[in-house]
């Protein structure tokens, strides 16, 4: 068992190193991704800032919106997953072949790549955020060690759900050439149901109720609320973490089923 863990750790270290070295070749592309990732929450913040004016919208004042969307920006970067784009290419252009011939499930390469990206950009966004928080008190967070630990846990679970669901989306390329279009649709829905456009409490109650039982808010809005102190009671925390664990387990189950069936289909029709 120990040998297996060490072996996996060695493989991850090598893959993360390679991902970093590759990213160094694409500094400009990463900067653009980062700017895009930061711009969307900031633009949404600007809109809500104007809407709130000096008063409140659904209990959110300007400072609350600022805190929410800055936390959203951070959590979004830390939970980002883009696997659908290259898994689609692996499958359709035959790059999966040599990966299948190696004694390592290709998902490990995807996870390592994801971790490598976040270790860089996550740190960068944290530094940017800390810098802004120094001069703009509105975006500062009241984080004790307990709340910080909960926020880290919520972010890790959210990142895992987002990664596995995106990976599964990529695996749909075994059956369809429109896997990336499905990913766009998923992102479009997440704009509303994951809390990107507005905090969930501002959505119509029926929509918020539907969102509450789906995986979308647990990929973004829930960790954001944990980070900003929006979720306070033990019952709400427990419910949120419970849903996160449920959806992570569910997506892992879906991944296993889709991967096994996808490989069988790939093996049957050659991609």
């Amino acid at each position, binding site marked *: 068992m120990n040998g297996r863990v060490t072996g996996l750790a060695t493989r991850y*270290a090598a893959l993360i190193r390679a991902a970093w070295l590759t990213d160094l070749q694409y500094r400009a592309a990463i900067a653009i991704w980062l700017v895009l990732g930061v711009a969307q929450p900031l633009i949404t913040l600007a809109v809500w800032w104007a809407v709130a004016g000096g008063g409140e919208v659904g209990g959110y004042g300007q400072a609350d919106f600022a805190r929410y969307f800055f936390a959203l920006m951070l959590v979004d970067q830390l939970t980002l997953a883009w696997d659908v784009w290259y898994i689609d290419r692996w499958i359709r252009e035959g790059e999966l072949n040599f990966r299948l011939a*190696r004694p390592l499930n290709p998902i490990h390469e995807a996870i390592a790549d994801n971790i490598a990206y976040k270790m860089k950009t996550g740190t960068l966004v944290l530094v940017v955020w800390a810098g802004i928080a120094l001069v703009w008190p509105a975006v500062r967070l009241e984080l004790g060690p307990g709340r910080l630990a909960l926020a880290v846990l919520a972010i890790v679970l959210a990142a895992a759900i987002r990664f596995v669901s995106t990976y599964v989306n990529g695996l749909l390329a075994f059956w369809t050439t429109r896997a990336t279009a499905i990913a766009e649709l998923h992102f479009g829905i997440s704009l509303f149901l994951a809390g990107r456009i507005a905090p969930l409490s501002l959505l119509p109650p029926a929509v918020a109720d539907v969102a509450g039982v789906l995986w979308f808010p647990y990929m973004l809005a829930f960790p954001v609320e944990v980070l900003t102190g929006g979720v306070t009671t033990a019952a709400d925390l427990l419910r949120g973490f419970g849903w996160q664990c449920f959806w992570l387990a569910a997506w892992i189950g879906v991944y296993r089923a889709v991967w096994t069936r996808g490989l069988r289909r790939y093996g049957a029709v050659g991609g």
Partner: protein
Amino acid sequence: MLAIVAEGLTKHYRVKVREPGLGGAVRAVFRPRYRDVRAVEAVSFRIEAGEVVGFLGPNGAGKTTTIKMLAGLLHPTAGRVEVAGFDPWTGGAAFKRRFALVLGNKQQLMWDLPPEETFLVNRAIYGIGWADYRRTLDELVELLRLGDVLGRPVRQLSQGERMKCELAAALLHRPEILFLDEPTLGLDVTAQETIRAFVRDYNERYGATVLLTSHYMADVTALAERVLIIEHGTLLYDGALAALAERTLPVKRVTLVLAEDVPRAALARYGDIREYASPRVVIEVPRRDAAHISARLLAELPVVDLGIGDPPIEEVIRAVFEGAAQAERARGAGAAVGQPDTERPASGAVAEPDEAETGEQR
């Protein structure tokens, strides 16, 4: 000891047929039509450990599909495969450590990084110890003459240098079985020769089994004593390369250098004139009469030099395919007049493998 066993190996695909144009696209959505593709049809062969076997056939013949089934990437529709004692489809990591798959048209090298970075990733993935890694890499660097390319980004390497690095990346774990699919594709003559010499050395040094597909006959004649010839998914020949010419084209080529011009008509008495560029003339004669006719040529004509050889292997292979095509036509004609024909698809579907649709390019 057997390294590879294929018995009745068969691969059929069902592919969607799309007609061109907007109407065809719309029809394909509402009434999709399918056709069966018989990529590989009941292919059987056995390869001993340490053998180098050439796998020949035109594009879309089923070579790559067969290799992918042997490597466990594709699941056979029917038949049995055993590679290094494993069922490739269920062999898992233990099986994957035993072979290497090199696809000439796909690369595993990381494009933006020097090749050694891919080697390091493969070292970790295959769990190769540092000492073994260093030793194997040193040997590969020497055999492939890689010294000055290891530190340059892959994108700056020539195609030949990249293929040499692909081979090194695939062989770091010292596989006992090599599936090489067009390893010299698009390479210049020097690079092709380097790759050939390397494959020969690797086979001799480690006793590795090699199954090699190539469009270049020189690859096959330089490396393989045995060839498998496949067309339309069916194995046409399995045997020694040397015996192929004897069986398929039972002729010899007599090359003459003449002291003076001899009219074509005079030469035609001896055999079929294949080249007439006085003073050099090439005459094709029946294999069994070669010695006798050569003696007559020497006695009756002003011969300065005479050589006897086999026809070029490309022509032999072409003759194999032409023979198969004629047999196919004969069967087709037989079917047309109502004779039973058990080898034709029952559905009447076109059985020609389509490269794009069967994933032959992968």
